[in-house]
């Protein structure tokens, strides 16, 4: 306790631990860390994740917490900045002595902060990091989010088999690690599936004018355009595609970046027909998912997205691991994580030997229609 008071002095303002101690659980809470983007331009991802964690945390604690004590999460903000992510991880390990860290939000941040946790042998669990090579950082780095490499092939195979897509043009944002690694996955999957690529075009994530690339693509007459982009550029591409008068049968096939209801909001009917693969879908009919969607809406007044869903599942996985470990000990938790088996709102879950999600059967392909995503018939 004395030690903690000293640390409080050192990081007085930084101390932002939230605890949801349920009545009847008197013991000191078991505190794990979470490093997410809570402020700045990309905070929509981090806040959705935090909502997912908090919702699950409430349920875990209602059900008796872990190790006879409530579970609590100490949040640290990264603002999307890798240096801040490193500082946050160092702070959680060095002064708060957390046995496990959730996050960070972006793959880039994980590449910077993951090695720090790994070096100190503290397990770190990404819930939204989908780039290649994340878990290769080291034996203490886990992720619960399906990497793009698992989702994109499903989408493209569905497009080939159900929609008869044989030749495509590819467009990707080349100034962003997320969209670039999405492209690498797409390229590999297209080759493997024997889909012909007639053109590969790039753009910047902040570009607004895509007419030059799309005019070129239109002349090549592809069956579909495969796009690795975030919402902003993705919507711009959909709008420009409509303005240039592409035939309606030429769909956009997106990566995880386009898996956002926002593209329907921005691009309107230009977004119709867009298909993406997703590890989760709000309309998945199973009762666990429907209960999650209802309680999330009741608590936050908004629909959950996949980031919230992944975070929600992850917290249960982590709580299971802590229970199985029998102590808030990083090494034991790390070993226990590898053995967790659980069925959550994303479907059944276990880690592979390489600490990636083992089960990809939960992937669904969804289609944009009248501004909303629905399951592809």
């Amino acid at each position, binding site marked *: 306790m004395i030690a903690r008071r000293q640390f409080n002095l050192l990081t007085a303002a930084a101390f932002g631990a939230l605890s949801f101690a349920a009545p009847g659980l008197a013991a000191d809470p078991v505190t794990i860390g979470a490093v997410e983007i809570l402020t700045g331009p*990309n905070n929509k991802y981090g806040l959705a994740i935090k909502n997912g964690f908090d919702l699950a945390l409430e349920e875990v604690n209602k059900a008796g917490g872990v190790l006879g004590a409530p579970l609590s999460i100490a949040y640290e903000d990264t603002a999307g900045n890798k240096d801040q992510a490193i500082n946050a991880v160092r702070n959680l390990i060095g002064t708060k002595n957390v046995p496990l860290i959730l996050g960070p939000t972006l793959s880039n941040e994980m590449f910077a902060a993951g090695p720090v946790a790994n070096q100190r042998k503290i397990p770190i669990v990404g819930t939204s990091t989908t780039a290649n090579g994340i878990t290769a950082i080291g034996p203490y780095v886990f992720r619960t989010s399906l990497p793009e490499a698992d989702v994109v092939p499903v989408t493209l195979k569905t497009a080939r088999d159900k929609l008869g897509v044989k030749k495509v043009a590819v467009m990707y944002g080349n100034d962003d690690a997320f969209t670039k690694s999405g492209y690498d996955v797409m390229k590999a999957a297209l080759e493997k599936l024997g889909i012909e690529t007639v053109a590969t*075009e790039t753009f910047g994530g*902040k570009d607004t004018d895509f007419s030059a690339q799309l005019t070129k693509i239109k*002349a090549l007459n592809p069956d579909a355009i495969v796009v690795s982009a975030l919402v902003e550029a993705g*919507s711009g591409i959909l709008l420009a595609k409509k*303005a240039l008068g592409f035939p309606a049968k030429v769909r956009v096939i997106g990566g995880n970046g386009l898996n956002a209801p926002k593209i329907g909001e921005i*691009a309107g009917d230009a977004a119709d027909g867009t298909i993406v693969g997703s590890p989760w879908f709000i309309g998945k009919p199973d009762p666990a998912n429907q209960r999650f969607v209802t309680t999330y809406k009741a608590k936050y007044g908004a629909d959950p997205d996949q980031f919230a869903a992944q975070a929600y599942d992850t917290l249960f996985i982590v709580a299971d691991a802590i229970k199985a470990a029998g102590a808030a000990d990083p090494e034991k938790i790390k070993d226990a994580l590898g053995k967790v088996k659980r069925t959550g709102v994303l479907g059944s879950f276990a880690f592979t030997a390489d600490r990636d999600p083992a089960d990809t059967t939960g992937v669904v392909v969804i289609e944009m229609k009248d501004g909303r995503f629905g399951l592809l018939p």
Partner: protein
Amino acid sequence: MLVQQLLNGLLSGAVYALFALGFTLMFGVLGVINLTYGFYFSTGAFVALYATQYLHMPIFVALPFAAVITGIVAVIIDDLLLGPLRRAKAPELSSLMVTLGATLLLYSLMTACFTTDIRRFPPAVFNGGAFEIEGLRITLSQILIVVTVAIIVGGLAYLLQRTKLGLAIRAIAENGDAAQLMGVNAGGIVRIVSFISGALGGAAGVLIGLNYNAIQPYMGEMMMLKGFAVIILGGLGDIRGAVLAGFLLGILETLTAGYVASSIKDAVGFLLLVLTLWFRPVGLFGRVVAKRA
């Protein structure tokens, strides 16, 4: 395809030209690189967005409305930031630095208010229809941009060359102190030019927001970087140069993306910028003698 690409280039050039007009006017008359100009661009787009969304203004009212509001904002910002420096006759780099700091401040505050989520005008505001002639496609918003650029260039040329006010503005641009001695109200002219530039920036923001449907606080910053290339290429302070350089950049970028590689499209502007500085610092058209140190 080449013709469609040239048309694409012309349209994106019109956008650059529209943006660069107010920017270069500010430099030409006031003698400062005002980096807050990009902020006016974002401001115009947001004012028009809110005017159409909440005040239900039709776009043809919201456009001038946003231009006027942005013009007023520009005058206030100029008075607060550059007024003191002008009175102290501070070196030109000071004004560059002040506007640099102010840009950072203003964008961050704007982001705090509006977040960086992109928004768009309600689809009902403007008919996004397109014409197709002989396989060439052009949308209504693109036509609106081209027409606006033409009107503004013509209007500015008339104002500067044919009116008394224009004479006073040119006198200030030529030599502020001398003009003041001749009885030109320098403070008044500075405000008028700030207003015009701000209004131009704001109007550009509205039109470009309308065309690309991607309104967010930092939209001005992205445009700004290209804007530098355009005004240097055209010659600092040279209005006709800025317009021509805008079109040139638009067409070169489009052709690069269409026929070379889209990944180097964004480098075109900056390469032109560096080449201009090396070989022809007065700008392509050399109408203004670059100020030597």
